[in-house]
């Protein structure tokens, strides 16, 4: 006899079955009632799109390509709630991420789909999902970071074992980073100038992929169950273990919708100014702007390629079709530069074992580090910046230079790795490559930096915002100080301090270091390091003639420098001197 095994989905199976039975009593039909969603899609192609970064529906070529010929589509995000509570990632970054996920979910709803937030670790989650949902395809955006590549290699292996086809597309960077490296003889360019030269030789940036709209997705369905929100809904901050009482509204709301709105505003402002130069720094620049885009680029709510092309179009319109200079894309190219330098270097975020990082004898000093991280250095400029960072999750790049210099080569002589970890916790746009790379740059640990200029924690702030309003905004305890003393309140006479209702040493800490002394000592230390690099050709502020030291002495000193530094000398002629 002919037995027909029919698999039905949910309770609707019953009525269909009984009809076919009554129509053809010779058929033996086996009902497999599945609870919720098991094995509901054995017919047809079932696809998972895995969101990691790239939290958007515009310019998402991996998603677009995997939709073709798909019958069911599920967009997932994998999240380990245990990790949330114990990780070094702070509440602002989690909140931003959750906003992004909610926004994605809302956008998918408009397309009759939903976002599936899966709790767990990818290597555990995927085998289960492949089975349960009978998956034929998996797609995701390419992740260039070493940890990401390793994780994805493991997932690809699981996928091939399960017979799942994997679709990967590049859309988090403007270019294929491996091609950049190839053009530079197999090494990532180590100076920004060299990087720009290579970029000039690359093919044009690929156009952004079409946005996923109903038309694109019309042939796919998403199997959504009535308990979707319970099982796969976007968690709340409380569920992740955060205390939200007293939490102020987010200065930077996450999500693709917000990102695209900001992009329009950003371009409007540029067009209005009709000037693509770097804007002059004023006190307002320090505050979070509604046109700021960096966190959205980091999470992928905004496609860097979309931004690139919109900038290009605007420039051509305003400047009547002349070729845009590379400096127009400064923000994007720096990001690209650090991604490129990091992609093949798993030790990129460390000093030890990192071939591009100078071995500098930083101090271990947890107490001093804590004061810096908490905004308790006694230098209002530094403390205000760190306070803004902790409260809002973003600070202007010059503010970053100021606090990074203070922590490392300027004043505290603490390792850049520590600063990087604090930024990782607090800074919305910090991802592994860009954060580590920037810290190495700002601490003069790499990339052949000139180290002579040191940002003064009093003077630099005073020159940036003479009124002191930025300080008053983030350090209300210092509100009563006049502009004359607000950057160095310890110098204010007693009556001024009393009038300001803030006694230095009691209501606000005394400065934790003497900047003049500390910076003097530190520049000597940096000089010691750089003088030992036989390959260094920059300003050494008068190398002393090593009179009296034998050539053998020099030889032993040379061994003290990382041999790696010599290996990574840039090939091109672009390094000064």
């Amino acid at each position: 006899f002919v037995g027909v095994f029919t698999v039905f989905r949910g309770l609707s199976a019953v009525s269909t079955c009984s009809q076919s039975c009554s129509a053809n009593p010779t058929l033996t039909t086996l009902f497999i009632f599945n609870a919720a969603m098991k094995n509901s899609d054995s017919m047809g192609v079932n696809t998972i799109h895995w969101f990691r970064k790239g939290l958007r529906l515009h310019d998402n070529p991996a998603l677009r390509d995997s939709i073709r010929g798909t019958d069911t589509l599920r967009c997932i995000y994998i999240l380990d709630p245990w990790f949330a509570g114990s990780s070094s990632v702070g509440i602002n970054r989690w909140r931003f991420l959750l906003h992004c996920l909610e926004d994605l979910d809302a956008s998918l709803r408009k397309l009759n789909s939903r976002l599936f937030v899966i709790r767990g670790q990818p290597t555990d989650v995927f085998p289960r999902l492949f089975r349960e949902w009978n998956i034929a395809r998996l797609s995701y955006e390419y992740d260039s970071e070493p940890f990401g590549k390793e994780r994805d290699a493991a997932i690809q292996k699981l996928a091939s074992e399960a017979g799942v086809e994997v679709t990967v597309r590049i859309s988090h960077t403007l270019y294929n980073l491996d091609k950049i490296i190839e053009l530079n003889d197999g090494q990532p360019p180590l100076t920004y100038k060299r990087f720009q030269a290579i970029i000039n030789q690359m093919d044009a940036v690929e156009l952004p992929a079409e946005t996923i709209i109903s038309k694109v997705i019309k042939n796919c369905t998403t199997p959504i169950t009535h308990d979707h929100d319970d099982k796969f809904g976007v968690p709340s901050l409380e569920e992740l273990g955060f205390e939200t009482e007293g939490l102020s509204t987010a200065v930077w709301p996450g999500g693709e919708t917000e990102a695209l709105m900001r992009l329009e505003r950003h371009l409007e402002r540029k067009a209005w100014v009709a000037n693509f130069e770097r804007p002059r720094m004023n006190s307002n620049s320090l505050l979070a702007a509604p046109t700021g885009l960096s966190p959205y680029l980091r999470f992928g709510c905004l496609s860097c390629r979309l931004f690139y092309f919109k900038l290009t179009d605007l420039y051509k319109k305003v400047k009547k079709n002349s070729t845009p200079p590379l400096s127009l894309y400064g923000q994007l190219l720096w990001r690209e530069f650090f991604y490129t330098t990091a992609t093949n270097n798993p030790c990129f975020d460390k000093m030890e074992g990192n071939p591009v990082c100078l071995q500098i004898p930083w101090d271990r000093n947890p107490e001093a580090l804590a004061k810096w991280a908490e905004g308790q250095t006694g230098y209002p400029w530094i403390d205000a910046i760190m306070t803004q960072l902790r409260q809002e999750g973003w600070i202007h790049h010059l503010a970053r230079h100021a606090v990074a210099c203070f922590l490392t080569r300027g004043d505290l002589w603490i390792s850049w790795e520590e600063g990087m970890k604090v930024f990782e916790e607090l800074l919305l746009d910090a991802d592994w490559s860009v954060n580590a790379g920037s810290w190495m740059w700002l601490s003069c640990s790499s990339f052949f930096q000139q180290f002579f200029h040191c940002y003064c924690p009093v003077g630099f702030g005073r020159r940036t915002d003479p009124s002191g309003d930025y300080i008053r905004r983030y350090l209300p305890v210092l509100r009563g100080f006049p502009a004359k003393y607000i950057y160095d309140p310890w110098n204010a006479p007693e009556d001024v301090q009393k009038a300001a209702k803030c006694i230095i040493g009691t209501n606000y800490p005394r400065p934790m270091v003497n900047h003049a002394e500390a910076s003097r000592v530190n520049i000597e230390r940096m000089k010691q390091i750089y003088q030992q690099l036989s390959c260094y050709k920059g300003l050494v502020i008068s190398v002393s003639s090593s009179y009296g030291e034998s050539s053998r002495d020099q030889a032993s000193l040379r061994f003290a420098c990382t041999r790696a530094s010599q290996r990574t000398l840039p090939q091109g002629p672009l390094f000064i001197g």
Partner: protein
Amino acid sequence: MKRGLQENEQEEGGGPSGGYQKSIKWSTKQDGEKELEEQGASWECLPQEILLHIFQYLPLLDRAFASLVCRGWNQAFHMPELWRCFEFELNQPASSYLKATHPELIKQIIKKHSNHLQYVSFKVDSSRESAEAACNILSQLVNCSLKTLGLISTARPSFMEMPKSHFISALTVVFVNSKSLSSLKIDDTPVDDPSLKVLVANNSDTLKLLKMSSCPHVSPAGIMCVADQCHGLRELALNYHLLSDELLIALSSEKHVHLEHLRIDVVSENPGQQFHTIKKSSWDAMVRHSPKFNLVMYFYLYEEEFDPFFRDEIPVTHLYFGRSVSKDVLGRVGLTCPRLVELVVCANGLRPLDEELIRIAQRCTQLSAIGLGECEVSCSAFVEFVKMCGDRLKQLSIMEEVLVPDHRYELDDIHWEVSKHLGRVWFPDMMPTW
């Protein structure tokens, strides 16, 4: 290492006590050994001079591994020539990420090689213990006749945090025993006048280099003693408060050799500090006596403290302003520093330095290196400056933010203009933007 030896002994049933490692694949069989000996090509036949030469290229750790290969190589490892230079690294895990020189190795060196040591440096981290450990080692170097001694703080100046007497007594051991000290680096230490007297008493004929910036316990009289007696002194680094007209005259006396390098740190302890002046005639005497000497000056002053400086001509060649310096002072630099070779300005302010830079280009005809940090210069003036200096500018390190676009030049075309005048490709220094 011991493990390696044991493995070999087990495998070969106990060979010579040194133990031959299987570093060469074909060397373990009896026949093989004979064959090699006949060819004269085995590693243990390498002459000691060649071994020595090779060992000199190896970092210490690799050399130490090599020394465990066989008795011959072990002997080579201990040859005096390999122990002329040593750098002691003293770090504590609580205060440093870097490894320290192994205490056992230090013991060995003191026991076996202290009389071989000639060029020694100590690198210490910011902990007091490291500084004290350095001094303990110094105190034991009684058989040493050092030519070079360097005490280098790699972070905070920890020599200043230890008991002064302990430091002085350790240093004195070296001064007394090494009668031919040529080069001495003791910046940021509590060295004092009496110990300088001891140094001079024992080493006045040989002392050529003395670096003692930021040694607060030394007085002008102390350094005068050095200048008066050490006529071979070619390099000197000290703080401005030790500089006097008498010192410069002493360094220019007939008995004195040509000075090559004089470094002066001008550091303000408290805002509003007054600094003494040096007469132009004293500087003139220096230049007459040592026409080619480098005068390197580091200024760490508050803006209002520059009054006494750059009023008269001064033969400074390398000038570094570590803090904000006013437009006015930079203007005076152009007028008073004809020998200027290198200029670095950490910060200035928000008024353009156009005139001042042009004047420096005109008057400082030897200028070959310039670095500008937090300053402002209009693009036109900058191009003019570069044009005037031409290709004598070997180092041009300008932060991107310094250059202010004007009606003639945008930021994007300035690097092309400047490259043209320099004769090489040039870009300003950039900082990452987000």
